[in-house]
């Protein structure tokens, strides 16, 4: 039989944040090569941070992403606070967590309804979905608006919050300002519960992978704003030990660095990992929703991440309501953070997974060195191995359908690829 080479190429991935390209080469009916090429901000922000004051890091790193600025702010603040020997507690930590819940709601609602659901329902994009299922899109917009409102009340702005700083906030809200969010959050929680039921009924492509699942774990609550880093293969470390266990490598086909566990290779961060390692930390309502949806304790089908995201939407709304109910305005909006020479590390759970920051400061708090490891670069190797699995399983599909299935697989990870130019890719044909 003659060698049959088939190449599937997607030059840019619609509905993945940022730009990306994927190449799958099939030879003699076998997957020969899978490459995901993404254009991550190469090391621009790390270089830009050098020479800046430690207090500027939250505002600067928030600009790395238009979808998850709070994640960048929180990881950078945790690192700066660690470098200066400060740890937030009580209501200041609670407010930070509440702000982060707003971002989870906003980001998950966008991804579940606008980017991922069209794949499962057979629509090319949310526009066609909206034409047939207007109520779904209205629901998504309500969820998103609710997340925005939480971010506006605490962060001062919906995107790139300006009210946060190392040590806390510039101004803390009054009780009544937070209480005003309650009706919308209660509605959002109802919508989220419906979303769990709705997504659980999707038809999921078959794929089971044996992942090393990596996420934060908090002693009391589902991990969002801090925690130790754990895995299903026995990892249990603090932020300061991260670089002893993980390494980033250049690969020739991508600007982004690919991360791996030094001892073991690829791993997965994000909703599947958080859920598998922290299901016991969900609120009773979110745990019940997960049970009803039939999620396995350790879910290994990456396509079911959309259901886990919906469960996390329930949790984020529920948790936001709890934090508001228990809120007492703190005496002061921030604790004093006095700079000192040293290093600091910070980790938090961005909606798409663990986000790690590391800074070295001189004695007056000037940043000498910065290192940022976003969740998407941690998932790169795993996305490629999923693609390989998907292509092997669905090799007989026509190219166009196979390419769509590959795109859907990439979207399982909600990758935040180039965060974030959004100019129009416009081509003018004058012929």
């Amino acid at each position: 039989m003659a060698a049959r080479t088939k190449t599937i190429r997607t030059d840019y991935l619609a509905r993945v944040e940022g730009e990306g390209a994927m190449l799958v080469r099939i030879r003699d009916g076998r997957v020969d090569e899978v490459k995901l090429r993404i254009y991550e901000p190469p090391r621009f922000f790390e270089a830009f941070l050098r020479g800046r004051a430690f207090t500027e890091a939250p505002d600067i790193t928030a600009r790395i992403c238009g979808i998850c600025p709070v994640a960048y702010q929180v990881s950078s603040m945790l690192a700066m606070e660690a470098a200066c020997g400060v740890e937030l507690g009580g209501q200041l930590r609670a407010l930070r967590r509440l702000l982060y819940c707003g971002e989870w709601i906003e980001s998950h609602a966008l991804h579940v309804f606008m980017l991922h659901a069209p794949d499962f329902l057979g629509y090319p994009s949310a526009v066609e979905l909206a034409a047939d299922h207007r109520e779904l899109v209205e629901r998504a917009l309500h969820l998103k608006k609710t997340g925005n409102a939480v971010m506006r009340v605490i962060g001062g702005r919906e995107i790139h919050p300006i009210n946060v700083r190392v040590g806390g906030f510039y101004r803390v809200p009054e009780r009544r300002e937070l209480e005003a969010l309650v009706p919308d959050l209660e509605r959002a929680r109802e919508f989220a519960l419906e979303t769990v039921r709705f997504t659980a009924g999707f038809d999921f492509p078959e794929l089971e992978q044996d992942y090393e699942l990596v996420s934060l774990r908090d002693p009391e609550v589902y991990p969002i704003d801090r925690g130790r880093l754990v895995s299903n293969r026995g990892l249990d470390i603090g932020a300061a030990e991260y670089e002893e266990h993980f390494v980033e490598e250049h690969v020739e086909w991508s600007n982004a660095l690919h991360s791996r566990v030094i001892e073991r290779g690829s791993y997965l961060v994000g909703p599947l990992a958080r859920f598998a390692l922290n299901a016991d930390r969900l609120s009773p309502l979110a745990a019940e929703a997960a049970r009803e949806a039939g999620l396995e304790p350790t879910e290994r089908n990456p396509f079911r991440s959309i259901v886990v995201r919906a469960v996390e939407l329930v949790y984020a709304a529920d948790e936001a309501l709890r934090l508001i109910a228990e809120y007492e305005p703190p005496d002061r909006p921030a604790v004093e953070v006095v700079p000192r020479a040293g290093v600091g590390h910070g980790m938090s759970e961005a909606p798409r997974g663990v986000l790690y920051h590391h800074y070295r400061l001189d004695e007056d708090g000037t940043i000498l060195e910065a290192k940022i490891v976003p969740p998407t670069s941690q998932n790169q190797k795993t996305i490629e191995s999923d693609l390989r699995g998907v292509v092997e399983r669905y090799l007989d599909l026509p190219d166009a359908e196979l390419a769509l299935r590959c795109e859907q697989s990439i979207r399982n990870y909600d990758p935040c690829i180039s965060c974030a130019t959004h100019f129009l890719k416009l081509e003018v044909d004058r012929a």
Partner: protein
Amino acid sequence: MRVIGLGNDWRSDDGVGLEVARRLGGRVLDGEPLELVEALDGEGEVAVVDAVSAGAPPGTVYVFEVGRVPLPARLFGAASTHALGLAEAIELARSLGRLPPRVLVYGIEGASFEFGKGLSPAVEDAAERVAKEVRSCTRST
């Protein structure tokens, strides 16, 4: 006329839409374009300004009226590198019955979309031209 600018100040000329909006006291949207669906909702005519990359000389200005017809298919098809493109956000608003009757989309051809702040000279000039034009539309209506 309400003015909405889209873009990212940290990607060189991608910030031109934001710059025009600032000059006109308009709404600055530097997150993802879905925000546009909410921002469009309201009374009166709207001008949306964004950077484009179409291979034309930097500073070239495109204008589309999308109140009744979609953005050109070619533009719509390859809408954006971001989560949801501008064209998709506009069509989404239309599906939901939230699109104002008259929406002008200004696209300004950028020279560079590399990381960094500040506009190229030709794009800076175009920002001023578009700001002037939108201002004069506002006066005449």
